């Protein structure tokens, strides 16, 4: 600890070199933390998707909807156990920054198909009874302080889901659903479910069905059933595309496994180049300080102590870069939902924020890069003989 001022003095003395190294390191950690947060969000989304559920949507794009009549026809496909419509409503409460995912569903079939939304009987009964009724996750309830019986209004940013009379939809909170992280890992306590019928009537029966959730008898047969469904509508005006829920989500998020892999590959390359840059900084630093290291040793600093000083200096670069990178990353992640284009991609994610764990990993990585970068110069300093260090000219 008493050597800290000595280290800081060196870093400050070469502030141009120090700050460029720290900035490089910060960028690296920024990238790492941001990507790992996004990828964790994708993972979460995929983890909570079930293989026993297929999602049928328009073959071209989610923008187009499917006819109501498809429900019966899909239900008749061998291997399909139940069919339930579900539309991502895209509702906005007052302001875009309040955004949380909301779905218009056929409550009875949807809840049966998705036991991860746990409703107490009275809540369920009230929900099924109330036309404007909705159930919300605990996160949503906490965020807006909503209680059972509260009324609130939302309007979709998707034009076909707006009321024909141009008023917003009014909803009534019928209760809060529970989640069970042990039985259903990845359940999301941050969304809202309401009746598709309400949406349908509100839009004067003009909106179609965005997706049909199809529960199948045997997850092994997901491929066969999907194909049977799609074949059914292949030559119609509205062909379909059916895939498992997790594949659907991966596509929806547009961050498929390959993209994630590519991103990781890029981070790895960045990490490696920052390692080299930092190592270069440290090698330059000790080369300039050859005599100084000789003096330290002459004064009685052991080889080990000199090694630790060099390592500590390198690690300190990591600490500075790591802290800055984490700061930038948490800001970026918070800003993501406000950025045009990108915001659409991340909107479906649960409250996106840099977790302590993610920040800790980023910080650890930075310190590790620093130490790794300092290893070679530290060993050179450790091994150099005093007489060789002090020899001038």
């Amino acid at each position, binding site marked *: 600890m008493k050597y800290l*001022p*000595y280290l800081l003095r060196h870093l400050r003395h070469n502030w141009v070199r120090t700050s460029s190294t720290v900035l490089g390191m910060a960028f690296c950690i920024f990238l790492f933390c941001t990507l790992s947060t996004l990828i964790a969000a994708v993972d979460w989304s995929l983890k909570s998707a079930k293989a026993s559920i297929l999602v049928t949507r328009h073959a071209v794009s989610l923008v187009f909807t499917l006819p109501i009549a498809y429900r019966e026809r899909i239900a008749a496909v061998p291997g399909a156990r139940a069919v339930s419509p579900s539309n991502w409503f895209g509702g906005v409460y007052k302001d875009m920054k309040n955004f949380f995912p909301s779905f218009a569903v056929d409550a009875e079939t949807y809840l049966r198909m998705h036991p991860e939304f746990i409703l107490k009987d009275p809540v369920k009964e009230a929900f099924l009874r109330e036309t404007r009724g909705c159930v919300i996750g605990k996160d949503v309830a906490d965020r807006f302080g909503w209680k059972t019986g509260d009324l609130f209004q939302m309007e979709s940013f998707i034009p076909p889901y707006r009321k024909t009379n141009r008023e917003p939809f009014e909803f009534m909170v019928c209760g809060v659903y529970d989640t069970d992280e042990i039985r259903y890992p990845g359940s999301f306590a941050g969304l809202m479910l309401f009746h598709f019928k309400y949406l349908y009537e509100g839009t004067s029966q003009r909106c179609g069905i965005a997706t049909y959730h199809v529960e199948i008898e045997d997850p092994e047969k997901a491929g066969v059933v999907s194909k049977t469904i799609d074949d059914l509508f292949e030559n119609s005006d509205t062909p379909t595309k059916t895939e498992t829920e997790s594949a659907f989500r991966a596509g929806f998020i547009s961050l498929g496994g390959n993209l994630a892999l590519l991103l990781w590959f890029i981070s790895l390359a960045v990490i490696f180049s920052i390692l080299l840059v930092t190592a270069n900084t440290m090698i330059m630093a000790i080369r300039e300080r050859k*005599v100084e290291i000789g003096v330290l040793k002459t*004064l009685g600093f052991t080889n080990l102590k000199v090694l630790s000083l060099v390592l500590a200096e390198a690690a300190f670069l990591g600490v500075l870069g790591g802290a800055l990178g984490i700061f930038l990353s948490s800001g970026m992640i918070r800003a993501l939902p406000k950025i045009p284009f990108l915001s659409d991609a991340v909107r479906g994610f649960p409250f996106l924020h840099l977790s302590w764990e993610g920040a800790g990993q980023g910080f650890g990585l930075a310190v590790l890069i620093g130490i790794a970068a300092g290893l070679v110069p530290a060993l050179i300093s450790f091994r150099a003989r005093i007489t060789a260090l*002090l020899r001038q000219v």
Partner: protein
Amino acid sequence: MPVVDVQNVIKKYYRDSQEILVLNGIDFQVEEGDFVALIGPSGSGKTTLLNLIAGIDQPTAGSVRVAGTELARLNESQLARWRSENVGFIFQFYNLIPVLTALENVELPLLLTPLSRKERRERALTALNVVSLSDRASHYPRQLSGGQEQRVAIARAIVTDPPVLVADEPTGDLDAKSAEEILALIETLNQEFKKTIVMVTHDPRAAQRAKHRKHLDKGVLTA
């Protein structure tokens, strides 16, 4: 018993598989409180001998005993510790650490001791006082003249109060006036602070200030 006792020392360097015999059977004793000047032409092995005495290099053969310790018996960390407690080194080019102030440079050897921060500051200031530079404590080396830098370096050498001081051409890079000040200071350290001093020089006037002189030529001591 002499404070510095060098017996039968041989030092060889190997460069490109070629053997260079730098010290060829040196016997050299310095009594406690003595001030010895090592004189000799460039390349005669003066620095090499001084480095052996200061414990920053090892002989190829022979024994070096300083302040009662046979240096060959110590491992690297013991030797480092021994150096910090027993010798102060004064270099020709001062070798102050440029990013540290005069006071911090002087304080540096004390970081290895268990002294508190306050005690370290006090001792460093006292040492700066001895070399009459306490008013320059917060100056950086580049803000000091050569003579002042060397005085800070001397303060650094004495701050741990070692019994032995070694100086390698301490006036070699100074003008006559500064050289004179430095020599006077070294003389004081010998006479008033009772330091045993070995000083390498090829300046005859500097050598005159020592109590004894030894000539080194081609790796051999000649009286």
